[in-house]
């Protein structure tokens, strides 16, 4: 089976609000990236490295699949 298209989505915005309305700036400081990078990740303009993805999941104390989901369509 060959994979045709992969879509990655995330729930960072919802998780931030659930985490006492954590700001993008605070999350960026915890993760070690700029606020603009968090903003780009949230709006799916940038897909982070595994390291940053795990760091984000760790901030929310969630497994990575609760933060990022991958959907694919097969040929």
């Amino acid at each position, binding site marked *: 089976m060959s994979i045709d298209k992969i879509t990655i989505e995330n729930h960072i915005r919802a998780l931030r609000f659930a985490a006492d309305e954590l700001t993008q700036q605070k999350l960026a400081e915890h993760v070690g*990236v700029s606020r603009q990078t968090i903003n780009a990740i949230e709006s799916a303009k940038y897909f982070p490295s595994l390291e940053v993805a795990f760091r984000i999941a760790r901030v929310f104390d969630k497994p990575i699949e609760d933060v990022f989901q991958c959907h694919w369509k097969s040929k």
Partner: protein
Amino acid sequence: MNVSFEEKSVWIQLVGMVIGLGIYFVIAGQMALSGVREMPAYAAVFMVAVVGMVIFLIIAHILAAIMGKPEQSDERDKLINWRSEHNSAWVAAVGMLAAITCMVFGVENVWTANLLLLSLALSEILGFVLRIVYYRRGV
């Protein structure tokens, strides 16, 4: 304003390079058309343009740093830098091949040198434009 220090820096470098080297190429073009063929004359104009550009870059970066706290570049900045360089380096390569061709066919050094300089400048400018596009549209 949703612009990182890195992106502001790209804008500053783009404006500085377009104005600084734009002025140089306008003057150099007029010199070439009026028959100036001595390389030192062009080098002097180029040096003035580069010094002016460097002063502009320093002042503009200081102002940008005062207006917003500079952050360290992160993995997204590095990816954008890499991808923009990867997609703009061909302009410099084409310019170098053209300059070598000019030398083979005995074109005057003034034209060859300025062609080389122009290709390097256009490659850099394309790189800055691509970086801004990647920052705005995503990478």
